[in-house]
């Protein structure tokens, strides 16, 4: 492990210029990931977590634009990189696993051809070696009779199997960073646990890092070393997984954790975060969460809180952070 993080995102701002106003989907997000680390990126719909993933891979299309910030992969800024340079990075250095295994594979090409494409573009192996690598990779993600299955088309696989294929493609060129955007959300719970185990094992074996984007705190708490919580395009809290789950300092994180129906200590009523996420096109002055926050005071409407260190490994953006053991 070196001093330089594998990936450093600094003050990333990705905005979408629409007719009804500018949507600041990602507005000043910073984080770092070291070699072999798994970072969970958590938040509700509209929090900007997927846009962070797309920004890293340079997949933001008009009307979206990365307005400011740096995305440093080994110190090299991807925001300033040309399309040709980005193509070398995608699939090779950083690969992506998308949410929906039904739409992220091309229905017109056999699975083998889609796997082969990655190796053809990023390695100089000959056809035979590529075929062998594909078979080996398919077997390692738990697909039996791999040589035969290479000729099959995506519709011949079930949802779980397809997601295995997508993961196999993502791992093929031995990338150093995998961005997994809700990789198990579309899957059943028993299949989900199979896929999560597989991803964990593969990452440990290959020494890769991962950004796990999900709305599911339970999944992220089982997978991630660090968690970053996004709300309205801003980081509201981050820290080591256990610290953040056990004693969050931001009221939003607390609210998210408390609204999960708990199988162990059941309460009659779930605690709920009142209201809904504000319209991201015209966010209120001050703290974005204040309208829904039980701790909000006059200051919250005036001054936007900045990320500051809290107890343990946590830092959060809140004027009135929670202490360990304190209720929201």
């Amino acid at each position: 492990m070196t001093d330089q993080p594998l990936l450093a995102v600094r003050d990333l701002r990705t905005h979408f210029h629409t007719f009804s106003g500018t949507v600041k989907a990602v507005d000043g997000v910073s984080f770092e990931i070291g070699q072999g680390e798994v970072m969970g990126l958590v938040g509700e719909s509209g929090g900007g977590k997927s846009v962070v993933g797309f920004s890293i891979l340079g997949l933001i299309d008009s009307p979206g634009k990365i307005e400011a910030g740096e995305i440093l992969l080994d110190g090299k800024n991807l925001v300033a990189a040309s399309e040709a340079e980005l193509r070398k990075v995608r699939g090779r250095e950083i690969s992506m696993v998308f949410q929906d295994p039904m739409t992220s594979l091309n229905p017109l090409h056999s699975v083998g051809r889609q796997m082969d494409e990655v190796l053809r573009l990023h390695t100089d192996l000959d056809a035979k070696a590529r075929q062998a690598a594909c078979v080996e990779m398919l077997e390692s993600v738990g697909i039996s009779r791999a040589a035969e299955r290479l000729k099959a088309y995506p519709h011949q696989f079930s949802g779980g199997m397809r997601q295995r294929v997508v993961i196999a493609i993502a791992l093929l060129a031995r990338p150093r960073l995998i961005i997994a955007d809700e990789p198990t959300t579309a899957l059943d719970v028993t299949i989900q646990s199979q896929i999560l185990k597989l991803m964990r094992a593969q990452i440990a074996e290959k020494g890769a890092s991962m950004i796990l984007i999900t709305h599911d705190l339970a999944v992220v708490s089982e997978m991630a070393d660090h968690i970053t919580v996004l709300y309205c395009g801003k980081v509201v809290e981050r820290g080591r997984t256990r610290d953040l789950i056990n004693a969050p300092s931001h009221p939003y994180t607390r609210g998210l954790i408390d609204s999960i129906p708990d199988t162990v200590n059941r309460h009659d009523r779930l605690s709920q975060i009142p209201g809904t996420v504000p319209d991201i096109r015209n966010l209120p002055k001050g703290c974005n969460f204040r309208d829904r926050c039980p701790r909000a005071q006059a200051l919250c409407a005036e001054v936007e809180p900045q990320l500051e260190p809290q107890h343990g490994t946590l830092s959060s953006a809140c004027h009135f952070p929670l202490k360990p053991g304190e209720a929201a």
Partner: protein
Amino acid sequence: MTDTPMLDVRDLQMHFPIGGGFLDRLRVGAGGVRLDNPVVHAVNGVSFKIARGEIMALVGESGCGKSTVAKTIARIYTPTAGEVRIEGEDIASYGFAELLPVRARMQMIFQDPYASLNPRQRVRDIVAEPLLEQTKGADDRKDVPRRITELLAKVGLNAEHANRYPHQFSGGQRQRIGIARALSVTPGLIIADEPVSALDVSIQAQILNLMKDLRDEFGLAYLFISHDLSVVNHIADQVGVMYLGFLVEHAPRDVLFARPRHPYTRALLSAAPSIKEKRETDEIVLSGEVPSALDLPSGCCFRTRCPFAWERCARERPALQDVGDGQTVACHLIDEPERDRP
């Protein structure tokens, strides 16, 4: 209050023939020419009762038939066999006209709040529609506007929301509109098919709390369909676990979560992710996937994925048997507990 359950489902079966045309079904093989009749066995004999004010949850993975059960009870489908008794009245073979009064006693809430509201209707028309179906006289209809305001208030919306269109609402608010629509005819039974799975977790908590409050206020019975065990554990009084169209285990909630007996239930419970640090180590890990409902396995439907399966499971289909505390399980392990070892 009588002893008649709000909903009494007996041996419900729902099969879908997917034959297609004559030529599609024609098979020429070694044995000569024959005609295939492929049938999806979506629901294969499911029975349960829901009392007034009770919440029954059906859980299972995609394709297990839980939504088909809901839709068959709501009579969106006509069951292949079996009885659906609403307050004792068997509606399994009712026609459209006979069903209309039944719909005042039974309403449905759908999964997708974006698809289940007509985008071209205002909220007040959406909520009023079941009510207008049920009240034909002009006198009864005078009350409708007041009733809509009342209903919207019940589900946490304002009177001014009544004139808006669905696209002006968030997912959670739309689900509230769906609930108001279901409540409009004061039903005794609400069938909720994955009502919170399209919602964010903070909104999900709001809707679950609302559903519980409404149950307490109106004594509603719910049939709650979900794949999410933690949601089910929160809301349900009794839980049925389905697999490939069969009810494999059925128990009061606390019994089921404390002492699951069927290997599938145990696997489901141990596969569910949790924010708790400690995980049970004796988890059952399932390999493989659900077999096709077109071609059910012989014997026990779960044996292809069950870590305990032995030859008896392929030979003989286990029936639900009572194991005490209101828990029933369909598994041969109950007779031969010594095999319960991986």
